[in-house]
């Protein structure tokens, strides 16, 4: 295992120390592993928290700041945080308007956030709503399974919902925007290599030099199928087609098109992939209104990428364009 770490057991705690030191505009509760914007709670604003396993940086801690999250709870690598963290964060970001929990659809995350919402309601009286992202079309959605995974849409949703909260909407209104984004978003990812969980010490899966995994998630889990390596053009089609066939993205509204790096793929390749994705969308009659290219929801050092589309009407575009100031996403004021 080749990593810039000390003891694998200390990776998350030490990375949070570094984040704290590098970002004076954040406040980190190291005992509870919570990243706050330094000025939380913001009075009168709906508080937004998210959280999940570590190893997906900049998500979620890097999305804390004005215009996005108020706090993020960091779990162990690829392991959902625990309810205590979420309860504590909920208390500390409530500015009187209630708190929205943004949860990626993984059994662990959902159950821990569920317990937290129960406890937070009981212990603190803070009004809590939860929204679950489940945008990964690699996974069949069904009542009888765990359902689709929450992946790339989570990034776009945290940005858009952050702007909605900034506009002063109430908790129900903010949650409605979140559900709208999730409902209008789909993603699909692939991997060229596995990643290595520090505490496990070896790659989660073995992938021969001439093979890739299509339909992977963000936890180093294998994908839906293993296929021979293919040119970027074909890879783009393998990602775009299932997204487009799951939801109709044509129409006047246009999409936010997000080409995400899994952690080990250089920006050069992500831009090259974006070029292929844009060409496919053009051919399919899908208009790109906004775009985002880079490693924003990662899987440690995994090489690979994912494509996320969110159908965006004028309201969502306005919220997307609104100022945001976090370590990971920053524009406007």
């Amino acid at each position, binding site marked *: 295992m080749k990593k810039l770490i000390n003891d694998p057991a200390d990776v998350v705690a030490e990375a949070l120390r570094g984040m704290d030191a590098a970002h004076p505009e954040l406040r980190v509760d190291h005992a509870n592993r919570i990243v706050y914007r330094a000025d939380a709670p913001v009075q009168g604003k709906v508080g937004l928290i998210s959280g999940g*396993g570590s190893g997906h940086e900049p998500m979620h801690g890097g999305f804390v700041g004005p215009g996005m999250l108020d706090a993020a709870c960091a*779990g*162990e*690598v*690829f*392991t*959902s*945080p*625990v*309810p*205590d963290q979420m309860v504590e964060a909920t208390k500390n970001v409530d500015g009187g308007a209630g708190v929205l929990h943004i949860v990626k659809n*993984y*059994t*662990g995350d959902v*159950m*821990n956030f*569920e*317990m937290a919402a129960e406890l937070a309601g009981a212990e603190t009286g803070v009004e809590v709503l939860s929204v679950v992202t489940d945008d990964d079309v*690699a*996974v*069949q959605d069904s009542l*009888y*399974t*765990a359902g689709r*995974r929450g992946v790339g849409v989570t990034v776009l949703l945290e940005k858009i919902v952050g702007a909605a909260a900034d506009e002063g909407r109430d908790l129900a209104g903010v949650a409605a925007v979140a559900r709208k984004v999730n409902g209008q978003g789909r993603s699909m990812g692939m991997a060229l290599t596995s990643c290595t*969980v520090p*505490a*496990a010490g070896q790659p*989660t*899966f073995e992938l021969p030099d001439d093979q890739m995994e299509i339909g992977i*998630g963000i*936890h*180093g*889990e*294998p994908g*839906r*199928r293993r296929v021979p390596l293919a040119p970027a053009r074909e890879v783009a089609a393998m990602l775009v087609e299932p997204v487009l066939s799951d939801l109709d993205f044509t129409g006047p509204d246009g999409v936010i098109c997000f080409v995400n790096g899994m952690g080990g793929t250089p920006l050069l390749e992500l831009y090259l992939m974006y070029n292929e994705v844009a060409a496919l969308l053009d051919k399919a009659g899908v208009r790109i209104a906004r775009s985002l290219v880079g490693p924003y929801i990662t899987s440690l050092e995994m090489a690979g990428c994912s494509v996320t589309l969110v159908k965006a009407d004028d309201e969502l575009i306005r919220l997307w364009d609104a100022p945001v100031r976090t370590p990971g996403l920053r524009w406007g004021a």
Partner: protein
Amino acid sequence: MGGMSAALDQLTDWVRRFAVAVRENRDELTRLDAAIGDADHGINLDRGMTAVVAALDAESQPTAAALFKKVGMTLVSTVGGASGPLYGTFFLRVATASGEVTELDGPAFAKALRAGLEGVVARGKAEAGDKTMFDALAPAVDALDAALADGDPLAESLRTATAAAEAGRDATIPLVARKGRASYLGERSVGHQDPGATSVTMLVAAAADALA
């Protein structure tokens, strides 16, 4: 006593033996999870059970309810992932069902385990054949009830339950996962043993050893 009921120190010993089993099989559990999950089940449970042992070392618990509540709360607070709420809820329900006593007889212990199982179902909604810990735990609880109903002593009944858990665990191998992370793999989950079913079999086996 002689395997007819379980005193508080035996119940505590059950928890400690489970911690030892998890520690010893940490890498194996993680390896199973790497195949159809995210390579952390052994790491997660070991982190939690290490914290549990530390909590029990720090403070001895006066009743079965207190003991299992401490175990459940500690697991909820330290494990995370799917197994944190599932094992945590299991022990919290076991605590409530056990009550403020210092000894559980066979039926009481079996009732507590069934309450734990129901907690797992309430939390995770798993059904038989979903390829989860349910598939080992449910047959074990059923077998325990049946053996006790047949008049077998608790110790022997728990050995019967362990065999049922093992069979349930092994039977997860050919299943297509429908719950948890392994469900994302669809057909590719076939041929792999479920990590949670594996660890929960260790939990039942630890009871058989501790309450012998």
